[in-house]
């Protein structure tokens, strides 16, 4: 059986990639997508942990999966909301480039 | 009848001006005269109260009297509104009663937004009263800040900016500096208070009550190191308000910017809060620290005396002269405190009283001149005695009092400070005496320059002091002379206060 650690490493990697995306991307849309990536890292973590705990016979084992499902849902909502606002921005300013979105500063 | 009154007298002392301030808010906005009269009414009540309280203080019995305790916040902070008057607070309460009334009367000339002015002035008065009569560190700090708080607007809104050619002193600057410097001082005080509280709670009896803390101290609950670093906090924190060098510059600049009535309160009572705090908190709660640090404090006090006097020498603006002379005279107070000697300390307290009256009188008169001429430059003013004889007379008396002329209150106070200092720090005491001589120089220069002499025609439009100003001036002069000739009534009370204050050593 694959040890939990591997999954956690995978999750960490994914999380890192997502984080990198957030930092490196200049398009608001892509930034949001990177965040989705990070959320998926979370899900991997959760499910792996759940099955691992199940393996060692922990009682409330399948909490993990439940949480994952919640996360997916919330993430979906979040993306929807984010895109809505970005869209509004695009209407007003004609750009979604976060470099140009800095009227508010200092 | 009196006994019932004693139950509430101190509480009234705080509440009356506060209530007055609140009520004043509801006066019509655009009727300055009404506001003024109302303020007079309130201030008069305060004055009467302060006199009664002072008289009710039985110096034979001594200690803390008229005490009354009101629950405020219970466990775990154990803060109680604990009122009580001691021999040091009593004369200062009286002083505040007098000066507050005087300042309100003098402020007749405030016409713009006068309602707000008196609201703030009365609030300030309430804060000052509070500091003198509370026995609880939280409320002491509470009232202390309450007394400082209104100053910003009082100066900023009703003050005046002055262009000295080489430099500029705007009222905004004066007000902002005053506020920030004083609050910076209270930062130190606050930390000190918290440190003591922590110490008390470590000893198992968390409290802010001064008397309880003093008992803990006597019981040796405060470590020496604690006292060694807490006392400087109090000494500097309160000292800033007392004009301690080198944190004094807020005071002259504040005066230059402030309107007359505010200057009177500022120099008359506000600066006394600082000195009072050093005694009431610094000395009584951290005597060990006090003993160690007093040489430094008296050194600074001496610097105050000489430094203030010498810089006053070369000032031309009347208010600057008086402002720096206040710095110099508060130096005597600090010296007296730092002697930790009965006579010196009593002298310090008496000096607080006499300087309060004296400097308030000076500012009142300068204000009267400024009202009429819109000039405070002693190089331009001259021959004032011709048009403003009474004003000149009062100012001269105040000036003589400040240069320590026997027969006026200043002399006895300074003399006692000297005696105390002679017992403890002889060389510095000699310097102090010399400072008094320098005072004579700048006061006389001022008199000769601006008040005596031939008047330019440009001052022919000046009119002498108004009846109100005359009344205030006369009253203050009488007090100066009375205290100078017969200080016993004040000293009896002060002595008991000093005795109990020094009992902790």
């Amino acid at each position, binding site marked *: 059986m694959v040890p939990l650690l591997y999954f956690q490493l995978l999750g960490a990697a994914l999380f890192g990639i997502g984080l990198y995306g*957030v*930092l*490196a*991307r*200049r398009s608001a849309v892509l*930034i949001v997508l990177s965040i989705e990536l990070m959320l998926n890292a979370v899900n991997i973590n959760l499910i792996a942990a759940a099955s691992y705990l199940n393996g060692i016979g922990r009682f409330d084992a399948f909490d993990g999966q439940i949480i994952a499902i919640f996360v997916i849902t919330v993430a979906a909502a979040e993306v929807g909301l984010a895109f809505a606002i970005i869209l509004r921005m695009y209407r007003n300013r004609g750009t979604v480039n*976060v*470099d140009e*979105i*800095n*009227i508010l*500063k*200092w | 009848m009196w006994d019932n009154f004693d139950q509430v007298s101190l509480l009234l002392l705080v509440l009356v001006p506060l209530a007055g301030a609140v009520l004043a808010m509801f006066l019509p906005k655009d009727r300055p005269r009404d506001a003024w009269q109302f303020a007079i009414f309130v201030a008069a009540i305060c004055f009467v109260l302060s006199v009664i309280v002072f008289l009710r203080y039985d110096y034979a019995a001594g200690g803390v009297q008229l005490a009354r305790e009101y629950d405020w916040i219970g466990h775990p902070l154990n803060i109680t509104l604990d009122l009580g008057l001691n021999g040091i607070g009593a004369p200062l309460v009286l002083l505040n009663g007098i000066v507050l009334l005087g300042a309100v009367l003098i402020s007749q000339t405030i016409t713009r937004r006068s309602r707000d002015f008196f609201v703030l002035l009365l609030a300030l008065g309430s804060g000052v009263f509070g500091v003198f009569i509370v026995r609880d560190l939280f409320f002491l700090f509470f009232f202390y800040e309450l007394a400082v708080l209104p100053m910003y607007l009082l100066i900023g809104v009703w003050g005046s900016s002055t262009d000295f050619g080489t*430099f500029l002193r705007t009222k905004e600057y004066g007000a902002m*500096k005053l506020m*920030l*410097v004083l609050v910076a001082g209270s930062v130190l005080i606050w930390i000190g208070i918290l440190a003591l509280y922590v110490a008390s709670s470590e000893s198992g009896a968390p409290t802010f009550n001064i008397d309880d803390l003093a008992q803990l101290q006597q019981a040796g609950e405060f470590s020496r190191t604690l006292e060694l670093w807490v006392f400087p906090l109090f000494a500097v924190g309160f000292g800033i308000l007392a004009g301690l060098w080198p944190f004094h*510059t*807020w005071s002259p600049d504040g005066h230059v910017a402030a309107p007359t009535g505010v200057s009177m309160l500022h120099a008359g009572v506000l600066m006394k809060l600082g000195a009072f705090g050093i005694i009431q908190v610094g000395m009584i709660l951290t005597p060990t620290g006090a003993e160690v640090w007093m040489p430094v404090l008296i050194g600074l006090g001496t610097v105050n005396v000489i*430094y203030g006097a010498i*810089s006053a*020498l*070369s*000032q031309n603006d009347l208010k600057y002269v008086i402002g720096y002379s206040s710095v110099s005279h508060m130096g005597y107070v600090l010296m007296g405190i730092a002697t930790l*000697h*009965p*006579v010196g300390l009593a*002298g310090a307290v008496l000096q607080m009283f006499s300087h309060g009256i004296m400097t308030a009188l000076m500012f009142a008169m300068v204000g009267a001149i400024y009202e009429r001429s819109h000039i405070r430059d002693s190089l331009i003013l001259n*021959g004032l*005695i011709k048009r403003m004889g009474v004003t000149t007379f009062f100012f001269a008396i105040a000036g*003589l009092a400040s240069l320590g*002329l*026997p*027969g006026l209150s200043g*002399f006895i106070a300074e*003399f*006692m400070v000297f*005696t*105390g200092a*002679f*017992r403890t720090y*002889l060389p510095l005491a000699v310097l102090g*005496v010399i400072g*008094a*001589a320098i005072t*004579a120089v700048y006061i*006389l*220069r001022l008199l*000769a320059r601006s008040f*005596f*002499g*031939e008047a330019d025609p440009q001052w022919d439009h000046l009119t002498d002091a108004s009846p109100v100003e005359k009344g205030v001036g006369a009253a203050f002069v009488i007090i100066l002379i009375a205290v100078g000739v017969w*200080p*016993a009534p004040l*000293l009896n009370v*002060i*002595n008991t206060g*000093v*005795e109990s204050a*020094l009992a902790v050593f």
Partner: protein
Amino acid sequence: MPLAFLIPVFSFVACPLIILFQRWLPGRGAPLAILAIGGGFVVWALATIGFLGASPDNPACDVSAITGALTCHFSTDWFTAGVPGNEITDVIHLDWGILIDPLTIVLLGLITFVALGVQLYSLEYMKGDPRFGWYYAWQALFVAAMLTLALADNFLLLYIAWELVGLCSYLLIGFWFEQPGPREAAKKAFVVTRIGDVGLLVGILLLWLNVGSFSMTDAFAAVAAGELSNGVITAVAILLLLGAMGKSAQFPFHVWLPDAMEGPTPVSALIHAATMVIAGVYLVARAYPIFAASPEALLIIAIIGIITALGAATIALVSTDLKRILAYSTVSHLGLMMLSLGAGGWIAAVFHLMAHGFAKALLFLGAGSVMHGVGAHGDVDIRRVGGLRRAMPLTATAFSIGALSLGGIPILSGFWSKDEILLSVSHHLPAIFIVLAFLTAFLSALYMARAMFVVFFGSEGEDSHHAHESPILMTGVLAVLAVLAVGFGWIAFNWPGAFGGFGSFVFYDHAEGFHFNPLIAGLSVLLAVAAFALAWLVYVRRGWSHESLRARFAPVLRVVENRYYVDETYQWVIDRVVLTVSAALAFFDRAVVNDVGINGPGDVVRRVGVALRLHVTGHVYSYALVVALGVIALAIFWWLRSA
């Protein structure tokens, strides 16, 4: 005799009354003031009689072990400060107390008498002055303070009175404050004396510190009992001396007295000749037990005395303003008194103090009468008046008597007192002193003669054409004083059966009869007569012109005429040193203490804020970056903890 404390009280009461009600009082309150001092005079007379009748068994009186004189003592509580601790000096207790002994008695006599005369005189002299009422108010206050000074039984009370007389002198010198002259002179007088007062106060406190009381008798007892170390005694003595020098215008504090002549002439007569200026001498005489215990102090006194006496005499010789001549002569004679005290000639000093008081008052009032006559308020240039004896015979006579008396012409009182001084100097001091003393005596005779001859004899000056004699009130006062100037000296010696002589009544340590040393006396007479003769030759007879004299001594003369540049030195110090320092300090206060010390931190904080705000760039990814960095920081923290 306890009523003696009333002597000052009258005038103390009179002063505020006059200030407040002068507008309504008859004669602007002048009569009230005169009434008050008159009352004082009467009470003094009564007290004196009582004192002469008093005996040691009077509970309030006893024969002092130190001064050996009968001393009566009355006091009442004033106030107490501090709390009785283990240390005696943890509490100071003060009383209003009066001490009556012969010295006090005679001094009170001098003060009340001269004051009375001067105030009567002023009725005419000050007539029509816009501030007539104020004049009398201050006069009353001065008299009260001066009397208190003489009566005080403790040093603190003495100091208080001391300061008050100083104040009055300030007010009266600057009485005509519209002109710059009096204004500045008044300021100068107050400040200079104040410098001395610092010494006095410190001395008093030092004494208190070692004795534990301000009472004079206690202090003397302590000194006599040897409780004080010599160092302390000398220190105290010198500090007290500083005060005395300030008030009695001793070198180098003499500069204020000549300027003080800017005040009304009666004021000069009363304050700056007869009473206030002798306060210093009085202080030394009063505190003599302390001085006597310290030879060094006595020597210093003598030296200062002789320097002052000689220097002032030379200046007086070349001054041209009548009042200034008199002023410098006053300084000179005060110097002689100090010298005498330094020489142990206590009685001589006090005696001369009295004699000089009357004579000098007479001279000043005479000078005032002259001004009044020639219609000059302010100063009289003796080169522009002359031959007034025809126009104002009475004044001339009176003035001449005074001049002769101070000049030391025999049988006039000045002669006897000066003689006593010379005697004591010759006994107790090195030879140089007596030589200089004789020189001083000669000079004082010379300048007195000069003033007298130039003003009243010789040819008419341009100002003296329409001169007229002064009204009877003024001349009357002159007459009375003249009588004293002639006769006072005679109480010095022993009238068999009647009176044991001044020295048997007012003395220190032991009563002394009148000494007479033919040699000294003869020499002084010789010098005096010579001086007058010389002056007569030069100024009346014009035997040889004083221009030629001046020409011969030109360089010396310049120095002397510039009063040895003492004033210039003071001026330089004030302008170049004091004011510069204070200006520098004021600038330092504003530029460094305030703008750097106080504003600095504030500015720094604000700048930090301004700089920090830039960290919010407005780019969302930078926000994310900071969040990430925060996470990393936490990780590092954890790593540090676990490592």
